[in-house]
């Protein structure tokens, strides 16, 4: 083996140089993409501004007006309180929906009997437009916080369940065999094989849950008791305050992007081995 050490040294040096060059190329590519993004941003906002300036206020507002209205709504209007209310409802629903979804998905994926018993209902409800269930939920749970939380969690629940179920089903059978050959018991199997393989799927599911949860948030606020950001949106729509409406929509977009970025950060912490560029 001593004979091979100089050889492996030159090989690792070579590998390092290749890696370095690859990193520089990647940096270059990132810079170019950043430039494209900035340019696209300028073009879209410019178009928005020009179209807004040449259209009556009722139909559309220039970007600068929307920002001014956003400031007004935040500082003097109801928007700040509405955001606090809506975001806390959303986070509550996200947590409940994610926990139930993870448990349901794991149980369905790992225990065939459980899947046989409840799988069909999960798919049936998943295929139903959830909005259609709202009258029923209101009938059972009223129009308050409880009903809103249930609606938001239902929107979050299904994407999480399906993703986690797929994750558990896709645990690499050759890896469970490796663990078995080293005498892993069921607990060790969960800790070392199943849970780590499912983590990236959980993150993907929750990330989709964020998008669906924001939908659920607005729907619950508009279809049950008018409240939160849904209320601000509905009022500005009813009184034809288009700039206010656009300000609310802009806020939701920013929230959505923000929460997805948080989830992506979390993924890098929880699953550093999982590289989205290569899918592994």
């Amino acid at each position: 083996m001593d004979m091979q050490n100089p050889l492996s040294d030159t090989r690792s040096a070579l590998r390092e140089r290749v890696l370095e060059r690859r990193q520089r190329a990647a940096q270059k590519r990132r810079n170019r993409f950043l430039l494209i993004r900035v340019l696209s941003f300028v073009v879209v906002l410019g178009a928005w501004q020009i179209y807004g300036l040449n259209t009556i206020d009722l139909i559309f507002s220039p970007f600068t007006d929307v920002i001014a209205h956003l400031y007004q709504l935040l500082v003097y209007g109801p928007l700040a309180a509405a955001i606090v209310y809506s975001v806390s409802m959303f986070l509550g629903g996200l947590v409940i929906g994610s926990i139930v979804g993870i448990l349901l998905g794991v149980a369905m994926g790992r225990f065939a009997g459980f899947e046989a018993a409840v799988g069909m209902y999960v798919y049936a409800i998943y295929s139903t437009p959830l909005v259609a269930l709202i009258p029923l939920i209101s009938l059972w749970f009223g129009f308050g916080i409880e009903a809103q939380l249930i609606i938001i969690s239902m929107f979050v629940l299904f994407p999480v369940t399906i993703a986690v179920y797929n994750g558990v089903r896709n645990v690499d059978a050759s890896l469970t065999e490796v663990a078995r050959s080293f005498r892993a018991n069921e607990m060790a199997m969960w800790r070392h094989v199943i849970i780590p393989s499912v983590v990236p799927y959980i993150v993907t599911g929750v990330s989709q849950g964020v998008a669906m949860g924001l939908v659920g948030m607005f729907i619950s606020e508009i279809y049950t008791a008018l409240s939160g950001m849904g209320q601000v949106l509905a009022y500005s729509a009813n009184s034809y305050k288009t700039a206010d409406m656009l300000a609310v929509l802009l806020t939701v977009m920013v929230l959505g992007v923000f929460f997805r970025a948080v989830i992506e950060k979390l993924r890098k912490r929880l699953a550093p081995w999982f590289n989205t560029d290569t899918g592994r």
Partner: protein
Amino acid sequence: MTATAQARPPKVVATGISKWYGALEVLHNVTLEIHQGEFVCLLGPSGCGKTTLMRTLDGLILPDEGSVQLDGALITSPPRQAAVVFQQFGLFPWKTVSQNVAFPMVLDRLPPTQIDEKVKWAIDLVGLKGFEAAYPDRLSGGMRQRVGIARALALGPELLLMDEPFASVDAYTRELLQAELLSIWERFRQTVVFVTHSIDEAITLADRIVVMKAKPGEVLHIYDVPIERPRTIASVRRHPAYEPLRAKIWEDMLTGSGREM
């Protein structure tokens, strides 16, 4: 079999093993004795059941008929004395090189200081010093299998089971790994069962070659390899017994795969 090997007690005894997958009989009445400290290659065309046989030796698969004994005890699940090296490496992508090597010892609840010591020893042994914190997807195929070998050796197994461990790496790396395995094994002399479909690899490594045939999987012939140790790849190729043995096994393999010469 050499006289000394025969004098030692049998380490592994497989008696009358048969295994069906549905209507397909993959192993038919296989009987095999492997002695303490012996390097045995299971050789045969694909579909001859050599991997299935190896897995029954580890208790990963239970035979439909017959039994496997290790040190006189019946095997029904993976035994403590054995460790497997897998064809597709079987590394956990979420564990670093060190964590992968440590994994079986963590399962065995060894004290952490002892685990660290053995991990370091095994990683040095396979020449992966400096890669302890790397994740497997950053390693080449050859390096990944070194991790697989380190993981098995760190356990200090009495029986090392290797399932076509070098089939997934390029030809050059393959010979490099064969040479390293030779030098490692000639130091420690564990009992090894090594599955391969390469005649050269079998002659290079083995004391005894079990040639199998397909449909159903059966033992066709068992050959002693009369090449003294320590061996190198070059010393094996130069040996006068090499070519005749190779030709004989090649003929066997043709018969075994159901084709005529």
